[in-house]
């Protein structure tokens, strides 16, 4: 990075630290913070979409669709989320390869599960073994995002389902009395009103999502936990920057990062809630009105 970093062994003090903190691996470490942010930024809307789909399906009048929706919202109730993370990463990968295998190699007759192996034709491999490294990494990240979205979609479906049920029944009856169809009632009356009721649950979910991001490490993505372990481990004289076991300091850094992230979110969500409550006929809205009046 800096010109004086050519001979790391001769450096001392602040210059040593400056050089140490700007090595290529450290740049990758800082980049992994962006990976985490990107994961949150992609997962949140996708999970919300999944959740909306799940909640809508759970309210459907078509029985199989309703069962699917109810089943989807129920999966997270009794089973640890980490089990889902570990499960979906392999299951999704195998599902994709299986589908491609069926499409690309129809002439293949051998069974796919041979004992303890999962064998698909080489054209169906994901990613292709000839692909460059970045494709493998992107595919891994994509699987992780999809896994997160499925699991958090189930959580969001729960929250949104509750939000939909919290909309006063009279509102829907009025809409029906005005002659609106089911579809019109849903889109014009139910959906615009449910967000206020769902927001506390959704903000809770946002905090949970932030705190679940270190699980990326378990899904095989080179995230901040991976780099903290990698960089913090003791380095012998073979390395340019030898040091002892510094993992504690790296993890302290991660702790501060997460505490800051949750604190900032907490403040921002409180502001958003205050904004959405403004003028609402709820206790919160009434309290705001009184505070201004007095």
């Amino acid at each position: 990075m800096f010109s004086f970093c050519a001979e790391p062994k001769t450096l001392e003090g602040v210059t040593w630290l400056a050089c140490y903190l700007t090595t290529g691996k450290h740049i990758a470490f800082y980049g992994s913070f962006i990976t985490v942010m990107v994961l949150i930024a992609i997962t949140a809307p996708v999970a919300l979409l999944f959740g909306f789909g799940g909640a809508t399906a759970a309210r459907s009048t078509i029985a199989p669709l309703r069962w699917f929706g109810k089943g989807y919202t129920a999966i997270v109730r009794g089973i640890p989320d980490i089990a889902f993370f570990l499960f979906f990463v392999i299951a999704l990968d195998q599902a994709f390869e299986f589908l491609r295998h069926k499409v690309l190699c129809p002439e293949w007759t051998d069974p796919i599960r041979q004992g303890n192996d999962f064998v698909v034709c080489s054209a169906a491999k994901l990613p292709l073994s000839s692909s460059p490294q970045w494709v493998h990494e992107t595919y891994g990240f994509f699987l992780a995002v999809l896994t997160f979205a499925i699991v958090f979609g189930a959580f969001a479906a729960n929250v949104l389902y509750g939000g939909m049920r919290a909309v006063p029944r009279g509102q829907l009856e009025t809409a029906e009395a005005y002659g609106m169809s089911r579809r019109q009632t849903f889109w014009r009356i139910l959906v615009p009103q449910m967000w206020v009721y769902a927001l506390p649950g959704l903000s809770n979910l946002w905090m949970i999502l932030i705190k679940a991001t270190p699980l990326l490490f378990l899904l095989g993505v080179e995230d901040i936990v991976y780099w903290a372990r990698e960089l913090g481990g003791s380095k012998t004289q073979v390395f340019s920057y030898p040091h002892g076991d510094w993992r504690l300091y790296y993890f302290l850094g991660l702790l501060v990062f997460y505490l800051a992230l949750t604190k900032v979110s907490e403040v921002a969500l409180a502001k958003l809630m205050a904004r959405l409550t403004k003028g609402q006929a709820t206790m919160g809205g009434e309290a705001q009105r009184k505070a201004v009046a007095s």
Partner: protein
Amino acid sequence: MNACLQTIADYSFRSIGFGERLLPKTDFTLCQQFTLIGSGMLWNIYFGLIALIAGFFLATAIAVAKNSNSYWVRKPAEWFIFLFRGSPLFIQFFLAYETFVLLPKVGVDINLGFTEITAETRWLTKAWLGAAIVLFLNTAAYSGEIFYGALKSVPKGDVEAADAYGLSGWPRFKRIIWPTMLRLAWPAYTNEAIFLFHATTLVFFSGFPAWQQRGDALYYANYFADKTFNPFVPYPILGFYFIILTLCVIGVYGLINKRLNRHLPENQRQRIKVRPQIIR
């Protein structure tokens, strides 16, 4: 059938070091997967119970401290709750493990009356103590916040009535405030207990090594999924065990809830509703 009984005899206590030493390597049967994953559940139950029982008392203390008027009592409680609720449990495990590894290796003799044991700091790097401590502190913070919320909503009239009866200080807390606080907090606390049990699955994936392959249920489920490359068998088995465990937790907490609510008319009792919105 007999082979399965043999497997159960060999592996049902494998996770705590009894029975067959080597894990199955090839030709995994359904019976082996059920037995070993079930054996791992012993760890999940152990961690959950230890953390819940010990955490309950610390949580009460923290809730009272956070409700205190004194700045020097309130602030530490607030910081404690913020520290453990604001950061991922996963990071807390890593951090605790790295801290425990760096501690000087010393032993302290503890006289138990009938025998003398040496408590050593290196025990802290083992999951059975180190991870239990992290889970204990973590659940204390989460439950502390729940109890604090309940403490805030204890009806004013109850406290005034206690004053009128001449109760104050410790007797007033013990006989009036504390039971009401528990009653109000209980549905939320049930959820906390359920998700604490779920959180115990993180232990062996976060720094703490599984010594001699003695791991928890998820550790074995992951082992089978890695070896067979088939996630569709071990993870549903794990899910099956956890659903049973969750139902047991709801059952036990429901009984306590009933007792806490027994003086109330039927229509004022609080029902326990599972609201799966808490992961760490």
